[in-house]
């Protein structure tokens, strides 16, 4: 184990002593993170902090319209689909109308952050002070409510509190009229009074901070300073792209170590082949993690969000780096020259990155491109980061992504280890 660590440290020292490696590790990814982060921020959040929320209103009443309006006001990152869809089809609806079944499917697959269904009879129930539930579908953890659920809760709480206030006033009015034997109010006057009371209490509740207001306010302040949203996409994206550049570059280094005979010298030492291979895998895994840390550190300095589970972010990073390290070892045996290796690194990085949504979020591309994009490990890593950073998800939310990346790593390592060229 000590020899493995010694080799890893030695190889890292060599990597850092080659000045040619520093632009690719440090300067370019940091610059790109900044530039892309800012420009994504400039174009109105560039998508990342706009939350696609499907909404189906089965009530079509004044009350439900009010609820919708309140939702918009509560969090302007929320884009209600299909109501507030834009010309670019941010909702990604295409030509078809949004039926309940399709909407549930979209929420289940995470293609929409959430689905809110306002049931028929919503207004009637509120007026009669009866219990009615608004259905909410989302992938995110109900224990760690995301911004959409928080907004919805705040709005519903307001609606029901106002409704309750009105109900109490109504009862009071009836009782007072009876107790003091006053002439009954005309139905119109009475309704007008109660309606005004309902609105007034809503207003007052809106002015007063709701108990969950702070989280909602957080999302709002984030969208005021658009640049921050941009880094939520650009830091994970550029980190992921440059992890590929850096780690895949190992193909050329492995080749060079064989041609300059330092690999053979290691084999003449009292080390097992497993130790040597383990050390070399460790080297590229470490480099990948270092690359992520550098870019995320820049993101952190510029105020990007880290969600609520840094450990889960670390898990996504580690799974992706492992997958790319395995890809490096699976390809290395077929490489004949350093030039060929460099070409392949460029080809793979520059095709897998955009395909998988490293430059721009996959949410904004057509559906078939999103499906196709998931051939790229980048898509799985980015999905994981989005779950954690945008939707405030937890460890369980990224288990599928981490699982897919590790499964791919296992398959690729099986090829790479069997074919590894020691001679």
């Amino acid at each position, binding site marked *: 184990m000590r020899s493995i660590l010694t080799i890893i440290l030695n190889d890292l020292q060599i990597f850092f002593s080659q000045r040619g490696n520093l632009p690719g590790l440090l300067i370019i990814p940091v610059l790109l993170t900044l530039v892309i982060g800012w420009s994504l921020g400039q174009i109105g959040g560039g998508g990342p902090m706009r939350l696609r929320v499907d909404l189906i209103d089965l009530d079509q009443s004044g009350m439900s319209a009010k609820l919708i309006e309140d939702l918009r006001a509560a969090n302007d990152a929320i884009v209600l689909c299909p109501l507030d869809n834009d010309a670019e089809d941010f909702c990604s609806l295409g030509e078809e109308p949004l039926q309940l079944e399709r909407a549930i499917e979209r929420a289940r697959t995470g293609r929409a952050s959430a689905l809110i269904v306002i049931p028929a009879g919503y207004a009637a129930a509120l007026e009669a002070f009866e219990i009615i539930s608004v259905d909410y579908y989302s992938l995110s953890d109900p224990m760690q409510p995301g911004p959409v659920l928080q907004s919805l809760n705040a709005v519903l709480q307001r609606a029901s509190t106002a409704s309750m206030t009105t109900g109490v006033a109504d009862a009071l009015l009836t009782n007072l009229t009876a107790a003091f034997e006053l002439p009954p109010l005309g139905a119109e006057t009475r309704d007008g009074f109660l309606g005004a009371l309902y609105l007034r209490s809503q207003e007052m509740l809106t002015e007063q901070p709701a108990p969950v207001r702070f989280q909602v306010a957080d999302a709002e302040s984030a969208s005021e300073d658009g640049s921050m949203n941009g880094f939520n996409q650009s830091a994970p994206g550029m980190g992921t792209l440059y992890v590929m550049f850096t780690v895949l570059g190992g193909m050329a280094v492995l080749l060079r170590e064989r041609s300059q005979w*330092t690999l053979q010298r290691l084999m003449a030492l009292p*080390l*097992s082949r497993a130790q040597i291979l383990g050390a070399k895998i460790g080297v590229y895994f470490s480099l990948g993690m270092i690359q992520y840390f550098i870019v995320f550190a820049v993101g952190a300095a510029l105020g990007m969000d880290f969600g609520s589970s840094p450990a889960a972010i670390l898990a996504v990073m580690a799974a992706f780096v492992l997958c790319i390290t395995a890809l490096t070892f699976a390809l290395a045996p077929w490489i004949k020259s350093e030039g060929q290796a460099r070409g392949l690194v460029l080809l793979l990085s520059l095709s897998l990155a955009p395909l998988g949504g490293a430059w721009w979020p996959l949410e904004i591309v057509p559906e078939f491109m999103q499906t196709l994009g998931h051939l790229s490990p980048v898509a799985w890593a980015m999905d994981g980061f989005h779950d954690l950073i945008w939707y405030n998800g937890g460890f369980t939310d990224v288990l599928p992504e981490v699982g897919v990346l590790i499964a791919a790593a296992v398959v690729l390592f099986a090829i790479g280890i069997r074919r590894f060229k020691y001679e």
Partner: protein
Amino acid sequence: MQLMVEARNLRKTYKRPDGSSIEAVKGVDLEIRQGEIFSLLGPNGAGKTTTISMISGLVEPTEGDASIGGYSITKEPMAAKRLMGFVPQEIALYPELSARQNLAFFGRMYGLGGKELGRRVDELLEFVDLSDRQNDRIDTFSGGMKRRINLAAGLLNNPPLVYMDEPTVGIDPQNRRRVLDTVKLLRDEHNMTVLYTTHLMEEAQELSDRVGIIDHGEIIAMGTQDELVQQVGEEDRLEITIGAQEIAESHLERMQQETAGVTRILCNPPEQVSDDSSESMPAKLTVFAKRGRTALPQILQDLDSAGVEIQSVAVREPDLEAVFLALTGRALRD
């Protein structure tokens, strides 16, 4: 006598990318005794590196096995490798690191650390006389200096056995001298066993207690230098460089028959004898003769009367070159 290295029937077949295969080593047996310098002498491509790679565990033999100090290199590689130092033909060093960093790294891989490691590295830098350049990067070194650090890196574990694969390739005469002296020092003062490969007859001649001659993947002769020379008969060699005139095959044959003591005449390169007379490339005649100096005047007279221009003449006592030539019909250097 105790054997340090014993190899039995080593074979290595390489697959070429085009699907064909090449048998680089064809059943080599080796016995290297404790405390000797054993040279493996053969031209480029003879299979020296492949052999040394198999007996050091770098390459798995297609067939056969080797042991170091009694430990099988294929079955107990760790124990075997601990007894072994290795100086590869390539400069197997990290060019980006300093001489000291390189040595310290390989030292750590042998489990050295702390003061002990520092002392050993100092010792070796002193030994190859590069203490003053220890903190410079390897890629700033001359070829000779790299060779010396490459050698030092093979001695970190102070091994009883060291393999050196053509350690003088591509260096100037001064550095070569230094390396050769170092090899003798390792045997004489550090009691090491050395396996030394080279394609240079002079090096094998100067260093070796015993020599194995390898060609086309086979050991074609093995023994002390005296034994090898006796094996081919104690003939002198007359090396005569001639202008590019035509010499008839029959003329050479007649010379061989009529001159007393001459046993064989080779012409290198052979095609120069009849073809290409327009080219001014000189050809070389090698005449094998008992008592070469006695036969020389008549041979020169013969050539002169045939109108052959003689450019230079050398008389060589029997040596390893002669052994190789006698066994293969080719010169070592070709």
